[in-house]
């Protein structure tokens, strides 16, 4: 069964550094998402992406965040200047298209900002 893959599984970075989290969604999916989960807390929506543009973003997704689909397969989340509070598990997800199609999640990237 096709999967959403995320790399790296764990990223350690220093405060103020830029970080790029990478995702390869399922190939025939059209909608892409980033979620994050701070340790012990709920899964929070960051951004949705369709047709090469952002469809919706949350208050968390400020100017420090950006997303890109540079080619036909990768979907990246960039944090320009990381803060301690950006430490979390970041999940990429994709869905085929219809409103009733479920999200398929990757295994996440654990970002640790020191």
């Amino acid at each position, binding site marked *: 069964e096709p999967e*959403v893959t995320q790399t790296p599984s764990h990223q350690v970075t220093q405060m103020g550094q830029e970080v790029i989290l990478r995702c390869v969604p399922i190939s025939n999916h*059209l*909608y892409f*998402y980033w*979620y994050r989960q701070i340790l012990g*807390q*709920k*899964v*929070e*929506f960051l951004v*949705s992406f*369709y047709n090469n543009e952002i*469809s*919706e973003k949350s208050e968390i997704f400020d100017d420090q965040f950006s997303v890109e689909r540079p080619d036909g397969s990768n979907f990246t989340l960039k944090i320009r200047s990381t803060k301690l509070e950006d430490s979390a598990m970041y*999940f990429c*997800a994709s*869905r*085929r*298209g*219809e*409103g*009733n*199609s*479920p*999200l*398929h*999640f*990757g*295994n*996440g990237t654990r970002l640790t900002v020191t």
Partner: protein
Amino acid sequence: AQSVTQLDSQVPVFEEAPVELRCNYSSSVSVYLFWYVQYPNQGLQLLLKYLSGSTLVKGINGFEAEFNKSQTSFHLRKPSVHISDTAEYFCAVSRGSGGYQKVTFGTGTKLQVIP
């Protein structure tokens, strides 16, 4: 806006006993409902979904959930749990139209199965 409430943050249960994990939602429009499971150090895996039709939905690993529109609930049940069911379970809701609609998650319920 849509929201999901999972009242129980942790549920301990003995092995082979039944379990119910509660979920209530609110939305001004029709919704699709999901349960996801997260095993330790892993991503989120779809357990089951309610889209329309029969209100009793069966999922993987012997889980089922019942959609109750009048009570705006979507509780998850399993008649006999196994040690391997120890995980965190998230109820989620999505609005009923538009492929880009975000999914909103509840705060999660940690199921601990006791041998």
